[in-house]
């Protein structure tokens, strides 16, 4: 089971870690890889973590970053918790992933769920010392999918599947410094973390509390050469007025549809940079990168085995098959991740126009608000609890800031004593919005509610959803 031909992360880095310029920057710290390779951030307790399923439940991205470097090849499994994991779901994660150890900078969160002996506190100080790594094997990497409701969905990867799309660049005289607006504990950010490491470069980590302009200034001061984020991240960067604080040679967009507007704006700000938009998902892995500066995907990408990836469109949605695809879901109830023919259905709907394919949305109407996914049904469920609401339809509206935003249409129950005045409508809307704000995170709350006289219903009795 634990077989593959990729060296562990540690072994892959050993040769270049001694370069003094290689480091990871956080908002208040600089970690030299050289120091990490001459010591340990885990107090050298690798033997105690060997062959175990290790939960990485961390407050800081740095804790996750250094633990991944040290434990890949040692642990049986590394379970990389995203920053927004609901503490309520920790016991579920521990159970599903058969966790029997944890590395954490916030041990209190795990207390009670795991035996105290199995919890390894982490500190950002690297202890010097020779640590024998012993025999190494392929570690399973567990990532969380985005955009699920209820208990988290976990998928299994290997270092080989995660790094399948990373080609080492030809020698560059200039040091490479990657940075990303993403958190590295999500698939998109993890790709950048691995690229920075395997390309022999350095990495500037973002910080959740840091304003965009400060982060850009910080990234600029470290000489960032490669930068990645969602189109929404980039729009925010432009609107901060500080986009010019970095001068990257490579600008990457992923996680959302990159429209021509954002690509053109970035071209104006970074005239020298290569601007690429990429498609990747936790399940399907990295699909492709488009580097011609145009929105959409050239139809030629669908010819057989372009760049080691097979892509096709079935029932309107993009299907991907490659060695970068996840190995499967954890937990039986989640079913199979790939179809019988080995393809992953991404759920992203494509449309052909003038020789290029364009994303038109998600199947089932899932709304992507600045990279965060919203299921219309969960918002409708909250709205429908209001006693005056007969039925509701939550849908996506195009938005220049977050790509899309949630809006709702509602049909009211007929009430004989209602006067249907504008004042009454306004009061109702604000009550319903209040309910939504109490029950849902801000990005799921409708930006606007419209009262309509009726909504179309399908023959099966469901509210008709605009396709994708």
């Amino acid at each position, binding site marked *: 089971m634990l077989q593959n031909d990729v060296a562990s992360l540690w072994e892959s880095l050993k040769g270049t870690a001694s370069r003094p310029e290689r480091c990871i920057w956080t908002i208040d710290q600089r970690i030299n890889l050289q120091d990490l390779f001459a010591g340990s951030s885990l107090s050298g307790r690798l033997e105690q973590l060997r062959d175990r399923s290790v939960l990485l439940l961390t407050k800081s991205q740095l804790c996750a970053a250094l633990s991944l470097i040290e434990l890949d090849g040692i642990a049986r499994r590394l379970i990389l918790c995203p920053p927004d994991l609901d503490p309520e779901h920790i016991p579920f994660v521990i159970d599903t992933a058969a966790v029997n150890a944890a590395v954490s900078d916030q041990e209190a969160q795990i207390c009670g769920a795991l035996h105290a002996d199995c919890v390894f506190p982490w500190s950002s100080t690297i202890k010097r010392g020779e640590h024998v790594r012993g025999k190494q094997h392929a570690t399973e990497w567990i990532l969380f999918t985005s955009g699920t409701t209820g208990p988290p969905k976990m998928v299994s990867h290997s270092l080989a599947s995660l790094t399948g799309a990373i080609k080492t660049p030809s020698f560059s005289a200039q040091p490479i410094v990657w940075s990303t607006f993403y958190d590295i504990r999500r698939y998109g950010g993890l790709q950048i973390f691995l690229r920075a490491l395997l390309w022999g470069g350095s990495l500037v980590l973002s910080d959740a509390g840091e304003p965009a302009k400060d982060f850009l200034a910080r990234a600029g001061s470290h000489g960032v050469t490669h930068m990645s984020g969602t189109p929404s991240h980039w729009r*925010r960067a432009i609107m901060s007025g500080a986009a010019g604080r970095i001068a990257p040679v490579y600008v990457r967009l992923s996680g959302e549809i990159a429209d021509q507007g954002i690509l053109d704006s970035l071209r104006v700000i970074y005239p020298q940079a290569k601007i690429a938009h990429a498609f990747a998902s936790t399940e399907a892995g990295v699909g492709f990168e488009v580097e011609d500066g145009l929105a959409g995907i050239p139809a030629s990408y669908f010819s057989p085995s372009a760049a080691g990836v097979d892509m096709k469109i079935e029932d309107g949605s993009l299907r991907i098959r490659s060695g970068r695809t996840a190995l499967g879901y954890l937990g039986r109830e989640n079913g199979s991740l790939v179809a019988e023919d080995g393809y992953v259905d991404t759920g992203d709907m494509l449309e052909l126009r003038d020789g290029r394919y364009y994303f038109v949305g998600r199947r089932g109407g899932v709304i992507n608000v600045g990279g965060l996914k919203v299921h219309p049904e969960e918002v409708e469920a909250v709205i429908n609890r209001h006693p005056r609401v007969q039925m509701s339809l939550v849908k996506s509206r195009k938005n220049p800031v977050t790509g899309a935003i949630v809006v709702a249409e509602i049909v009211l129950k007929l009430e004989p004593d209602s006067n249907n005045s504008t004042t009454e409508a306004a009061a109702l809307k604000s009550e319903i919005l209040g309910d939504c704000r109490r029950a849902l995170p801000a990005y799921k709350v409708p930006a606007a509610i419209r009262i309509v006289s009726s909504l179309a219903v399908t023959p099966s009795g469901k509210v008709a959803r605009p396709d994708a």
Partner: protein
Amino acid sequence: MPGSVRSTIVSQFEQVAREQNRKLAPLSDDLVLMESGLDSLCFAIVVARLEDALGFDPFSVVEDIQFPVTLGDFIKIYEDAAK
């Protein structure tokens, strides 16, 4: 009615700030939007609300629109589109 676009925009800023429990910086034309106390989601909501209030979304009409940096830029985009 001159100034009505501006006042609609200003009142949306104030309302969204209130709803999202954010402290709004004193509004002036040279205020950098990202320093106004509102985040990206707040601006997205403001744009959606303005579309309902004014009947148009200037960002969807003009192809190569510049992203606004200051409140003045933002208001100008709407005023130009309203002409």
